[in-house]
């Protein structure tokens, strides 16, 4: 019947219905879905982007990238390398006030999502 048709989609195998553990999403996954569905994730992204640009964090990261690229030669750099280079510095140089504000907002969302 359906097997006559050409498969146009690579479907992963249907999970075994007897295996209940596999179906339960983690708390993080559930929160993530709620964040996306409510639109809060996008708003948070824009907010963080704006604040990190304003305080010069983005420029700082770009400077580090450019220095690295200059050193390695611009054709020898992969995206992974760049991400690896700026991630630790990026995390360390987030201004405390911005981090606190964002965390506060996220916690508020979590509480409201729980109700």
């Amino acid at each position, binding site marked *: 019947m359906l097997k006559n048709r050409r498969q146009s989609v690579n479907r992963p195998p249907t999970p075994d219905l007897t295996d209940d553990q596999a179906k339960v999403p983690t708390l993080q996954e559930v*929160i993530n879905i709620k964040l996306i569905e409510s639109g809060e994730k996008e708003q948070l992204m824009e907010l963080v982007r704006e604040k990190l640009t304003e305080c010069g964090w983005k420029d700082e990261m770009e400077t580090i990238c450019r220095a690295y690229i200059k050193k390695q030669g*611009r054709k020898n750099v992969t*995206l992974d390398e760049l991400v690896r280079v700026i991630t630790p510095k990026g995390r360390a140089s987030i201004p405390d006030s911005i981090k606190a504000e964002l965390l506060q907002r996220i916690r508020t969302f*979590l509480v409201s999502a*729980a109700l």
Partner: protein
Amino acid sequence: NMFFVTLVKFPMSIVVCVQLALHVFGDLLDSITVDVASECHRIARLGLERNLDEEEEELRLSAQARARIADPSNNVEANGKYVVDIFGQTHPPVANEIFDCMNCGRSIMAGRFAPHLEKCMGKGRKARLKATRSSTAAQNRYSRGSPVSTYSPYSSTASINRLSNGNPRAATGECSNGTVEEP
């Protein structure tokens, strides 16, 4: 929804809440970091950062110039009249490029332009005295705003009356003190 009920009711939930918030924050930060890296990567690979190549060229040129300076054959004192700069160029003491003065149209040497312009535009003492007779009288006649000359109030208001759109207000006493009122 059991997860969330426990989240609110139990103190342990506060720890979980904080951990979750940190995780969400970390997620956001990672996304933005990837975006920044991605943009830089793209610009680098496409060679869109013009400054990069220019900077390298500048560094090369200045390294070259430094080498030339270090070379004793380019010693400044030995050359006497002309000084050699770091790019190996010499410049005459007075700029000798010639162009046309935009005021009087004469051909002037660049190094002599400032003094010429002083005389040419009447900024110098002699030139200003010379100009007093001819140009300042003309300037007074055509001054804007309230008519300055109090010697002939009638002639100025008369001309205002001619120019007005027939508004009777302009023709009567309002303008007698010499000020102009636009209708």
